[in-house]
């Protein structure tokens, strides 16, 4: 396909000729997912483990809104009603099962499938491609099933406690560990679920992917490299937070560790993660430039 064959996408948003049809679709979406999001905002998303949900939700909406001119454009629309319907039907059944039997994983996951089905029915593959990243991004707001959270949280907590203990012991502090309980001096600290870093990992990974998508790096190495590096970065940041909290408790007592300094440790977490990401990104850029220079001299 040459560039001339595809008409340039419209830059400004004009209400589409079939806006009454879209109003119907919007009404259906509201009937299904209005209650879902009400429950999420008042329930799961208010917890620490799934606290990144609202951020991802708002950002996904923004990503779609940003592309609204292209999505709603009838230019080059090739509706695929049969394919769309074949995706929509199982999505609706998944929603019914998820919502009635209390499986938020299915209930929210159905939203992504419903949106794909609706876009295919109303517009076509081309408009779907415009918002693929927004839909992919939405996967991050699907609440993980309890079993997955448990399975990931436990080993992560143990690993974070283990590394924090080793580093502080090496630095000469009187520290001991049983499972996820750290003993420093006369204080005993329980490494909570929130410290496992599942929430940190998801938030950082989501925000990192968003950053990469918005700035649109052309280099695949830098994109994929950074996305993968976020996993150890998030782990390191959590170890730093646990060590910071342990030291705060050691020097200033239990009250300081549980009080306002606890929030301070959260800020330390995100600052250290941010610095590590910028550092990793610079390294990747440096490595890439080196390769390019090598290619030029050869």
């Amino acid at each position, binding site marked *: 396909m040459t560039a001339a064959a595809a008409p340039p996408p419209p830059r400004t948003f004009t209400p589409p000729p079939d806006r009454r*049809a879209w109003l119907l679709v919007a009404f259906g979406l509201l009937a*299904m997912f209005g209650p879902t999001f009400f429950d999420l905002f008042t329930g799961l998303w208010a917890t620490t483990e799934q606290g990144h949900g609202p951020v991802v939700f708002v950002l996904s909406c923004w990503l779609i809104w940003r592309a609204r001119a292209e999505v709603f454009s*009838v230019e080059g629309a090739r509706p695929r009603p049969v394919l769309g319907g074949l995706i929509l*039907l199982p999505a609706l059944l998944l929603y*019914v099962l998820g*919502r009635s039997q*209390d499986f938020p994983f299915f209930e929210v996951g159905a939203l992504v499938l419903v949106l794909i089905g609706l876009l295919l*029915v109303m517009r076509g593959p081309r408009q779907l491609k415009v918002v693929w990243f927004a839909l992919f991004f939405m996967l991050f707001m699907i609440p993980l099933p309890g079993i997955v959270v448990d399975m990931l949280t*436990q080993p992560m907590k143990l690993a974070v406690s283990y590394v924090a203990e080793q580093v502080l012991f090496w630095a000469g502090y009187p520290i001991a560990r049983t*499972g996820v309980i750290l003993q420093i001096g006369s204080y005993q600290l329980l490494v909570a679920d929130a410290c496992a870093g599942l929430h940190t990992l998801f938030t950082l990974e989501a925000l990192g992917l968003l950053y990469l998508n918005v700035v649109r790096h052309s280099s695949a190495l830098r994109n994929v490299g950074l996305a993968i590096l976020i996993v150890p970065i998030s782990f390191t940041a959590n170890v730093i937070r646990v060590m910071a909290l342990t030291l705060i408790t050691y020097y200033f007592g239990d009250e300081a560790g549980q009080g306002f300094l606890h929030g301070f440790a959260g800020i330390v977490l995100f600052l250290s993660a941010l610095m590590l990401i910028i550092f990793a990104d610079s390294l990747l850029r440096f490595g890439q430039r080196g390769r390019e220079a090598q290619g030029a001299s050869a």
Partner: protein
Amino acid sequence: MTPHQQERRALVAAIAMCAASGAAVALRPRAVAAGPAVQLASIVPETFGKWRLDKDAVSAIISPDVQEMLTTLYADTLSRVYVDDQGTRIMLALAYGRNQNRDLQVHKLEVCYVAQGFRLVGSQKVDLETAVGAIPALRLVAEQGPRIEPITYWIRIGDRVIRGWLEQNTARVALGLRGKIPDGMLVRVSSIDRDRSEAFAQQRGFASDMLAAIAPEHLPLFVGAIHR
């Protein structure tokens, strides 16, 4: 593609979506299990078989935040130590949860023990032969330094004794689609003993004696419908 055609498709989609929304509301389970009218402490006798309550045993001191979690998760809990004439001690822990929806599901022992620094060795599925029938239970050994604690436990959800996440959730959905919110019970029997096979044999005998001594009307609370 005419606007008219689009509207027809959109209308079909919107009707299907509203139907899904309505179906989800209609299929939501509402009936919460009535639960036992009496406390677990009065359901489980203080003496049965060769076992009697060990009143001298100091039950573990529970930290306030753990106690708070227990009260939100479970409607009733019981923790006791029994002893026989030879001095064999068996620890019994029961936890009853009225509403086994997602947030309040009975917690797996495997997670709690590891968090407290125990090392779990070998989880094994067994069919526990008891006076009231075979119970699909789990056996594992928790180790912490010199302390070796073999454990036998089972979880009942609704009228089934389940093992694992998949069985737990199928039991929940099977009842849920019939409009019922299941209740649940965790039964844990353990002892501190280096001789595992001896400990497991004692625990089986203990569980069997206990179930035989429980009034028939309360038995489903412990084993669901398996004895019928």
